[in-house]
């Protein structure tokens, strides 16, 4: 459904994405991993047309996004950003209703019954019903992620993009968010692309991984194929040990402290 073709993209100071290409099929759960500054967020921004590529194409359902209106893109792709910075207070319910904006018809001024139904379902799915009256600025990290996912869901997208959905969360909340995403992927047949910093979480939940290095695709494939110690050592420039998770059999990465410091600590 999504095809990235030879993308060169970046900020005026220089390119961050150099010749990135991959294809995404429906119902996939793709994780993007890679070191800081390897172009993960830039790639997401290119897909949603926040950044215009210097070269190359982003194609959704056979259509180049440059030929689509922002509104048409918003009907297909919803984004859960890493942080929200709200200057003015609005409550969770109003916040989630904002996700209906791309679907409203030209002269529609109030939400209709369908909008309310969709919002209610999304709130139930993400367990945010009881947060309804709270102000968005007063939510905790885990709550705001679930609310943001609810807002993305009411857009009724085919593709959901998330920028580090689990950073700043404790393991309990991480698992809750990722279980929710897996459920959306499996039961609601939503295609998901998410950026991860935690390789073990990415390995556990994604069915494909894209490993990036210095703005290029280092490799793409199943977690077992991507998360090898050769690849990780080269990309992250740090020694690791890759084992199999005793829970799922997926690759599990152990970090190895720097040898000298390690010796000292013993």
């Amino acid at each position, binding site marked *: 459904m999504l095809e990235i073709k030879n993308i060169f993209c970046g900020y005026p100071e220089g390119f961050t994405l150099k010749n990135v290409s991959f294809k995404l099929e429906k119902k996939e759960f793709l994780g993007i991993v890679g070191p800081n500054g390897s172009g993960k967020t830039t790639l997401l921004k290119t897909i949603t047309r926040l950044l215009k590529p210097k070269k190359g194409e982003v194609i959704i359902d056979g259509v180049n996004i440059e030929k689509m209106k922002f509104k048409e893109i918003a009907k297909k792709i919803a*984004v859960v950003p890493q942080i929200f910075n*709200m*200057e003015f207070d*609005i409550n969770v319910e109003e916040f989630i209703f*904002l996700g209906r904006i*791309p679907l409203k018809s030209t002269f529609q001024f*109030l*939400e209709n*019954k369908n909008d309310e139904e969709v919002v209610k379902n999304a709130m139930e799915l993400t367990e945010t019903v009881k947060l309804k009256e709270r102000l968005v600025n007063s939510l905790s990290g885990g709550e705001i992620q679930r609310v943001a996912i609810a807002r993305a869901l009411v857009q009724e997208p085919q593709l959901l993009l998330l920028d580090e959905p689990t950073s700043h969360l404790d393991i309990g909340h991480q698992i809750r968010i990722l279980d929710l995403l897996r459920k959306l992927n499996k039961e609601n047949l939503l295609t998901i692309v998410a950026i991860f910093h935690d390789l073990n979480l990415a390995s556990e939940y994604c069915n494909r991984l894209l490993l990036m290095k210095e703005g290029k695709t280092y490799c793409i494939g199943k977690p077992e194929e991507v998360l090898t110690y050769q690849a990780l050592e080269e990309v992250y420039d740090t020694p690791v040990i890759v084992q199999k998770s005793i829970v799922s059999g997926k690759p599990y990465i152990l970090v190895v402290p720097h040898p000298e410091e390690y010796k000292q600590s013993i």
Partner: protein
Amino acid sequence: MPVSNGISQNRKRKLVRWASWIFIMLIFVLVIGFISLCIGSGGLYFKEIISGIFTKGTPEFSILFDIRLPRIILAFVVGGALSLAGVILQGIFRNPLVEPYTLGISGGAALGVTLNIVFGIASIFGTMSMPISGFLGAIVVIIFLYSLSINRRILKMHELLLCGVMISFVCSSILMLLMAISKTENLHGIIFWMMGSLEQPNINLIWMTLFVSILGLIASYFFCFDLNALLLGEEEATHLGINVEKTKRALFIIASVLTGVSVSVVGIIGFVGLLVPHFVRMFVGNDYRILNISAFIVGGGFLIFCDTLARIVIVPLELPVGVITGILGGILFIYAILKKRLIFG
């Protein structure tokens, strides 16, 4: 279907709440308007008003309908326009301290009008060239701010506000320069624009202001969802399908027209766009569907109130209305900064 009934009641409740806010605000404006109609340096009181309304040709009738009523209407539409420009600019810049005056847009408009007076353009092209030159002055400042925020990629909020304050300073300095070199007959006009006054004998200008502000209010409603989306930031608004650059340009034009026309008719009246939205947001919330109309109505009522105060505080003399809004607004501005220190952090 009991479930969906329950949901649609939710929407009904919202409509009822919005309608009752508008009703309350209109009552507030009518009460203030009526009080303003009753009191003044002429010493008219309630009884005389009633008899004045029904007897045409009396001096009371003429004071009421030829002097006070047009002035009240002008105060209402100018207050509404400035405060609407305030909420729109706050929506674009996502900052509650932004408004036509603090961004220097009012200053630019005043400079435009003054240049018009000094070079005698109005005497060639008629009085209607005044609002146009005010609009041009406003739009020049806005284009300047806009290009600053684009070229520097992200112009930080406090830098933008500082630029605005500096633009105001530069404009008022140029105004003083023009005063120093201009003929005495122009002096009164220039001072009038610098201090702001709702005394406007030209009824056509009042009608034009009324027409333009209502038009601005209607236009703002074409963008109320875009402004709602912008609450989340520009990138998020893009993700919600808003063409942010196009929307911002249109909103800038609306804000410039509203400010430019107001300033060219009544001069610089600062802080209305800061004070009024601050309180309106506290009551009706931040949904622009209700915020736009509320800011307009309350802003109108507020300026009628300030103008009435300005007329009676030092009777028989009159204070410039900008003095009152300036004192109230300046205090609130400092208070808001202290409360929301994080903006400048």
